[in-house]
């Protein structure tokens, strides 16, 4: 029965994707992309990927929509039609689709336990997580401990992207600087003239932050971890920025602090690795962090998840702020 639900949802996904590509109104495309993201997150959940579904919900449906909208207000709302190579592109796409669908007939069926993917390292991870790491969530164990190098690389990519955006927007001062300094009482800043959303939003922000912390530190036992928590905490601050305007968020989180967060999280991650070397283990080997290897693993995972969360929060808030502040000047 759940297979049928999956098929139904996948069909909806294809319809949504077609509509996204077809519409000329970019706002509509972004709203539909939000729906697309919700659908794909439900699919992930049906396919047993709870952690991924949580990430996709927080990032895809939340942060991504907001970033696209912020960029849209700075660029154009409508796409101009008229592409010279439309037929050629359609031809290429149709042929490739047919070839790829032909290729799928050799793939193992959905959920086949004998498929090659299920044979290699995954059983080892599932078998050794309880004794070597001692936490119930295997995804977190693999992410933070077994494949800690990978995750360090991912954090560096996020760090680099964040620095890139800050450079893009920071290198050149705003064209209309000076008189248009952000005035905190300028009418129409943020949603402040909508009283009810403002009150409810302010009421909710502490709970969202609390939930973000819960996701961060409960990641060992259930779906969660630094990536998801970073996105949720960033969403809470973005809500604050929407309600109170960009000037207010800068007062709460100055750009210097944000830059410090971005670098500090990645540094914390690296420092845990170096601490492993200094204590006589190898890089990112948490077992030496405490007398008992399993306690060491717990400490290591806690620290690096915190590092990931801090970096992700910093990058997402800075990127949003960079886009939104430019729009409101």
């Amino acid at each position, binding site marked *: *029965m*759940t297979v049928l*639900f999956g098929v*139904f949802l996948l069909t*909806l996904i294809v*319809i*949504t994707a077609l*509509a996204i590509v077809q519409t000329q*109104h970019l*706002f*509509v495309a*972004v*709203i*539909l992309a*939000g*729906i697309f993201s*919700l659908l794909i*997150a*439900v699919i992930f*959940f*049906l396919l047993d990927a*709870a952690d991924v*579904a*949580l990430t996709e*919900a*927080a990032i895809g*449906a*939340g942060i991504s*929509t*907001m970033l696209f*909208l*912020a960029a*849209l*207000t700075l660029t*154009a*709302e409508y796409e101009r039609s008229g592409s010279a190579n439309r037929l050629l592109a359609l031809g290429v796409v149709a042929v490739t689709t047919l070839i790829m669908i032909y290729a799928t007939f050799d793939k193992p069926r959905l959920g086949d336990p004998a498929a090659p993917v299920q044979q290699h390292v995954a059983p080892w991870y599932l078998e050794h997580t309880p004794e070597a790491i001692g936490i119930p969530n295997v995804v977190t164990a693999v992410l933070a401990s077994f494949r800690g190098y990978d995750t360090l690389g991912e954090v560096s990519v996020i760090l680099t992207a964040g620095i890139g955006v800050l450079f893009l927007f920071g290198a050149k001062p705003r064209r209309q600087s000076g008189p248009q300094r952000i005035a905190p009482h300028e009418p*129409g800043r*943020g*949603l402040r003239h909508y009283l009810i*959303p403002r009150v409810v*939003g302010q009421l*909710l922000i502490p*709970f*969202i932050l609390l*939930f973000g912390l*819960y*996701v961060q530190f*409960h990641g060992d036992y*259930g*779906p*969660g971890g630094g990536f998801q928590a970073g996105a*949720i905490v960033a*969403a*809470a601050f*973005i*809500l604050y920025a*929407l*309600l109170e305007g960009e000037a207010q968020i800068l007062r709460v989180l100055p750009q210097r602090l944000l830059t410090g967060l971005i670098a500090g999280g990645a540094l914390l991650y690296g420092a845990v690795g170096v601490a492993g070397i200094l204590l006589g283990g190898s890089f990112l080997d948490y077992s030496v962090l405490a007398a008992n290897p399993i306690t060491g693993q717990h400490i290591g995972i806690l620290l690096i998840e915190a590092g990931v969360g801090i970096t992700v929060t910093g990058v997402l808030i800075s990127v949003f702020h960079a886009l939104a502040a430019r*729009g*409101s000047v």
Partner: protein
Amino acid sequence: MYYVVIIATLATMILALVRALLGPSVYDRVLAANMFGTKTVLLLAVIAFLYGRPDFLDLALAYTLINFIGVLAILEFIRRRAPSSAADHDTGS
């Protein structure tokens, strides 16, 4: 018995999706997207119980909060675009 709810929710999702595709105004689409989000929350809560893993209710909670922020963000940026898109035509071409 959970299946009744799941099927009803899925059917509503398709109705909301049709509304999101038809429009006609941007606000209709936002309404449909908001409704879609609520339906997703319900669907996830019910599926978590169907799978016998009630610890996954965290997801539904996250969806509720993110959905709210998303709708407010869309409204705010729709409001913001009015002056900026007018400026578009001056500098655009």
